[in-house]
């Protein structure tokens, strides 16, 4: 696949603060790439460097084969959807969307054509004349996307674009955005700290912490084969078991429980023998599942297992249980 963006040896310092130690990353054409990490991990800074709103301290940014490291934002063929949309309050929807085309001096007829296309695409036709202040958060969000898309950017940069919206709307717009990206075949770089959002939308996720890439891969790999403890903990829930010199990460849904008396050593069982024993300390009802918290024997560690038990068999606090799993489900992680 063709590469759209290459980041080569990027570092970024703010004063004496090293935000990003050396970082290399390439992004393919047409890819939905998500930069995922806790706040302050450098993901937004990275995005802003691609946009040209920040300059890397060292390193190169190549956009479609051209070195753009020192180009100002207004000379780069990328567009950004800002966290709080940054819509121009003194312009209506149409004028907001026109702005980029006007600055680029796109001929009037073509500009009008492109604006109505993008208005149609984002279902904003009836809001042409509205001011941003008169619109809901979700509608403003669409305007922000339309305003960026209308310029046919090589890359669309999105900085937590759904962060300010409520849960239901966010779910809906996630799908809309993903469909839009797929149908336009556009390169999206999406910044978020919401792991669920990252998992559902991305072709590829880059997990960052303290300016360092922790793992780079397909959402499935990120979830099922986390490379280290940080990734395992940041994405979904994980339990860590120390076995010898190694640490294994196990998703709560992969942990199985048995009553201690049924699976103590020497007892015949239908499943692998439990590696750990402990007592149930808490059970929390989550609708489809029970979250069962177990304190391991000989340690203070509490692990959590998801159980899909029916009403006939449910765990009780103080139950003595054995914890077992299939070998394929344990993921050896770096510390």
């Amino acid at each position, binding site marked *: 696949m063709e590469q759209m963006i290459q980041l080569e040896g990027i570092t970024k310092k703010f004063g004496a603060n090293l935000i990003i130690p050396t970082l290399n990353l390439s992004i393919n054409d047409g890819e939905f790439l998500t930069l995922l990490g806790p706040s302050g991990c450098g993901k937004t800074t990275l995005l802003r460097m691609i*946009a*040209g*709103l920040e300059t890397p301290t060292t390193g190169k940014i190549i956009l479609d084969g051209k070195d753009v490291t020192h180009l*100002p*934002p*207004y*000379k780069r063929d*990328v*567009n*950004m959807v*800002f*966290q*709080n*949309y*940054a*819509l*121009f*309050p*003194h312009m209506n929807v149409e004028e907001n969307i026109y*702005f*980029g085309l006007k*600055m*680029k001096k796109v001929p009037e007829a073509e500009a009008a054509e492109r604006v109505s296309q993008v208005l149609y695409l984002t279902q904003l036709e009836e809001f042409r004349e509205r001011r*941003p*202040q008169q619109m809901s958060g979700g509608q*403003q969000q669409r305007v922000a996307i339309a*305003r960026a898309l209308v*310029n046919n950017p090589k890359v669309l940069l999105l900085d937590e674009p759904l962060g*300010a919206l409520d849960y239901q709307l966010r779910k809906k717009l996630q799908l809309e955005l993903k469909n839009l990206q797929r149908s336009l075949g556009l390169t999206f770089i999406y910044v978020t700290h919401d792991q669920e959002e990252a998992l559902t939308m991305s072709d590829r996720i880059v997990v960052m912490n303290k300016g360092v890439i922790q793992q780079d891969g397909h959402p499935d790999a990120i979830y099922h084969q986390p490379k280290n403890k940080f990734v395992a903990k940041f994405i979904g829930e994980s339990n860590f078991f120390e076995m010898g010199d190694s640490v294994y990460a196990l998703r709560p849904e992969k942990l199985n429980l048995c009553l201690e008396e049924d699976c103590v050593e020497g007892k015949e069982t239908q499943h692998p023998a439990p590696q750990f024993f402990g007592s149930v300390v808490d059970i929390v009802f989550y609708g489809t599942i029970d979250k069962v918290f177990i304190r391991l024997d000989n340690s203070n560690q509490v692990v959590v297992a998801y159980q899909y038990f029916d009403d006939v068999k449910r765990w009780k606090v103080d139950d003595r249980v054995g914890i077992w799993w299939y070998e394929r489900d344990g993921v050896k992680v770096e510390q």
Partner: protein
Amino acid sequence: MQKTWRSSVLLAYSLAVLAFLYLPLIILALYSFNDSRINAVWSGFTFKWYQALFQNTRVLEALTNTLIIGFFSTIISTALGTTAAIALHRYHYKFKTVINGLVYLPILIPEIVMGLSLLVLFSQAHLPLGKPTLILAHITFCVSFVVITVGARMEGMRNDLEQAASDLYATPWQTFRYITLPLIMPGIIAGALIAFTLSIDDFVISFFVAGPNSTTLPLYIYAMVKRGISPEINALSTLMMCATVSMVVLAEILQPRHHHRSQEE
């Protein structure tokens, strides 16, 4: 019952304060329509003092001076103040608070000190006193107010708007022209109106730096009062008051104190 009692006391108190503030002005305005030369007796309604005013060439000359000086000092102080406010907002540099303080200082310095120091400065520089010195003096105290109103507007503007413009291919100049300027315009207009109001009302500083042929209305009123208070002064003062009030109201309308915060959440 206690509540009504309390609120009526509060109402009476508020009215008393308002009366204290505005009674002198109301009386002044009322007597400008008084048919008698003596301010103490009401002898009928008339417009004749206003008519006399507009036939008085010296008043008209003072009015022209005031407007010319007001016009130029407003234009220049608005331009200077606006650019200063933008620079103060945008750039970070050493001693920023000190420089900010220096901008506001002319508001706090006693006018008489300002006037005297300007007079000393002008005579040191061998500048003949007249309209130019008045304009220069007015600019010095108007600039601060423009910086404050425009600065408040800049504060209220989110800086990602300029970044968004830049991301949408606008050069720094285009960003200023199409985004920054329209958004701070209410602040600029408010600042200009305040500057104009201050300029046409100023007495103390003007008193020091005025020269021949540059008598402004406040200076003229003062000269008239020395020769005894006539209803003509009342009429002139009433007109000035109306002009000032309408401009302050206009400035107030254009400078909304609470911004729409909905977007920022």
